């Protein structure tokens, strides 16, 4: 367990102010550049000293403990393998282990072919370097492991495999792992829980699903991929339903959170995942006459349904991404099945279920 207890650090115009507890699981720290992710790692690893507050590792305070005495493993953005030592000596730099142990470890990380002779780390591919640097970090049996964007700079297919394999290896360690990344997909694959940072603070911490279901604010929602964020105002309709009036449609979350005291302001933002949307043709040729279908309407306004025009359709990997002009300031995005026929220029309606709507 790692606990940061009122840790602050100021330098230049930047200030870190963090108060979190991370269990024996993999926590992804995500956030834009400059949000303090790396500073957080530097404070936990001991390379930076906080201005105030303390770091605890399994309830042992780390104040004044130098990096080499913390027993915290690190995997850096650049693999930082020692170029003057062969692969095996790199792995055993922290502690010498038996031939059997090293073989097991390398099989686990699929780098067993790299121990031959005096192979230099500079002859390794990008993916191999990362694996070796993970092996080097976990061979010392650390009490915690910090990883700083370990897949940066790798080609996509290699990265795709590595992140899943890292997940498996790290989960088996059963120690706190902090995994800094700027890619929310990577966060969801590798980590058990996610901490979203901005401007030096942790905005929200929880499982990826929890954050998707109730993001704390617009920034978090956008960062985890709730790309359709529409501003509106809470109002009661003539018939007594409480909805968010977005100007182009009413949005009614279900179960309603608008009048249960959880939302106190009247200007809110509703968020809908592109994947939670269906797109239906909005015009029907009806005996030669085109009539618009209005699937969900109430008091003259569409509910949980917006009329729009298809701007662009992109087919990819079993699905289509549809960009839509809904008369809003931002393009609306929907991910639909390959089977659905949508063409650029079509007038369509997007529909979504009230239960898929988040309010922030």
């Amino acid at each position, binding site marked *: 367990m790692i606990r940061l207890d009122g840790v602050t650090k100021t330098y230049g115009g930047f200030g870190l102010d963090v108060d979190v507890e991370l269990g024996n699981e993999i926590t992804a720290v995500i956030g834009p550049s400059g949000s303090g992710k790396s500073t957080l790692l530097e404070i936990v690893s001991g390379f930076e000293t906080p201005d105030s507050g303390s770091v605890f590792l399994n309830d042992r305070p780390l104040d004044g403990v130098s990096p*080499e005495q913390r027993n*915290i493993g690190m995997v850096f953005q650049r693999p*930082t393998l020692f170029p003057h030592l062969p692969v095996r000596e790199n792995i055993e730099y922290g502690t010498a282990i038996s031939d059997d142990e090293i073989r097991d470890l390398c099989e686990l990380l699929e780098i067993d072919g790299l121990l031959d002779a005096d192979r230099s780390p500079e002859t390794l591919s990008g993916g191999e370097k990362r694996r070796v640097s993970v092996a080097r970090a976990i061979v*010392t049996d650390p009490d915690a492991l910090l990883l700083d964007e370990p897949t940066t700079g790798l080609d996509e297919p290699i990265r795709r495999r590595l992140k899943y394999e890292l997940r498996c290896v790290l989960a088996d360690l059963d120690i706190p792992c902090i995994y800094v990344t700027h890619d929310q997909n990577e966060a969801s694959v590798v980590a058990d829980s996610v901490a979203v940072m901005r401007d030096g603070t942790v905005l929200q911490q929880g499982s990826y699903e929890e954050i998707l279901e109730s993001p704390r604010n617009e920034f978090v929602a956008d960062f985890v991929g709730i790309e359709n964020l529409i501003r509106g105002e809470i109002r009661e309709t003539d018939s007594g339903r409480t909805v968010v009036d977005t100007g182009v449609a009413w949005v009614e979350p279900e179960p309603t959170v608008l009048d249960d005291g959880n939302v106190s302001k009247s200007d809110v933002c509703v968020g809908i995942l592109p994947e939670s949307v269906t797109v239906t043709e909005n015009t029907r040729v009806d005996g030669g006459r085109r009539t618009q279908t209005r699937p969900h309407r109430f008091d003259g306004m569409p509910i949980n349904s917006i009329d729009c025009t298809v701007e662009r359709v992109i087919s990819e990997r079993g699905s289509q991404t549809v960009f839509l002009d809904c008369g809003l300031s931002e393009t609306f995005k929907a991910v639909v099945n390959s089977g659905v026929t949508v063409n650029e220029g079509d007038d369509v309606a997007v529909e979504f279920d009230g239960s898929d709507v988040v309010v922030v």
Partner: protein
Amino acid sequence: FGGDYTFFGLLGAILAVYLLYPFVTFFAGAQGNGISVADFTRPEVISAAKYSLTTAPISTAVATAFGVPLAYFLSRSEFRGKLLVDSLVILPLVLPPVVGGVLLLTGFGSFTPVGQVANSLGLTLTDSYIGIISAQTFVASPFVVITSRAGFDSVEEYERASRSLGKGPVETFFRVSLPLTSGHILAGVALTFARSIGEFGATMMTAYNPHTMPTQIWVTFISRGVYATLPIVAVLVTFGLAVVVGIR
């Protein structure tokens, strides 16, 4: 790069030719002025070579032994007065060597407190081996400090890796930092050695006698003319070329 850089090439060629031309005239002229292989074994040439080749390595070793730790300390630590030390380390580079010699004389000359203590111990700090070495060290040590420091600045992340694997600062220094910066340090050592062996201005002050190679060039030039300096000049030009090729 796909472009026409003739304009720059022509201007630059003027400087390049200016730098090359004296080498050509010297070695061509020396041949025409009856300098022979026998001149390489004249006693004053041997003597000057002996003094230079026994002092420059010591100066270089001293500058390295203390300069590399200083470079490392400057690269890793923040402390009050760091800017002062940073400046102090560059200063001998931009200061005229004669000024360095004058300063050293006031610090270590025979009539200074330090000089007198040394005299009473039987050591002469000027016009001696030690005088040569002190001048060379003062003037040449910045090279090894500056290049080593650039090296240490570039390996901080490797050191962090080592520290995170349980190794303390000293072990990290010897197992990681030093091997990884050996290229930088060697370049610095080569430059320091070249500067030491070529030291003239400060040495004229602190140790006109015994003559090092540069001092001997001056003495020979005064007494026997420019081409008579060929043996020592040839040795020093060869050294210079070796260093230039070496640091590439």
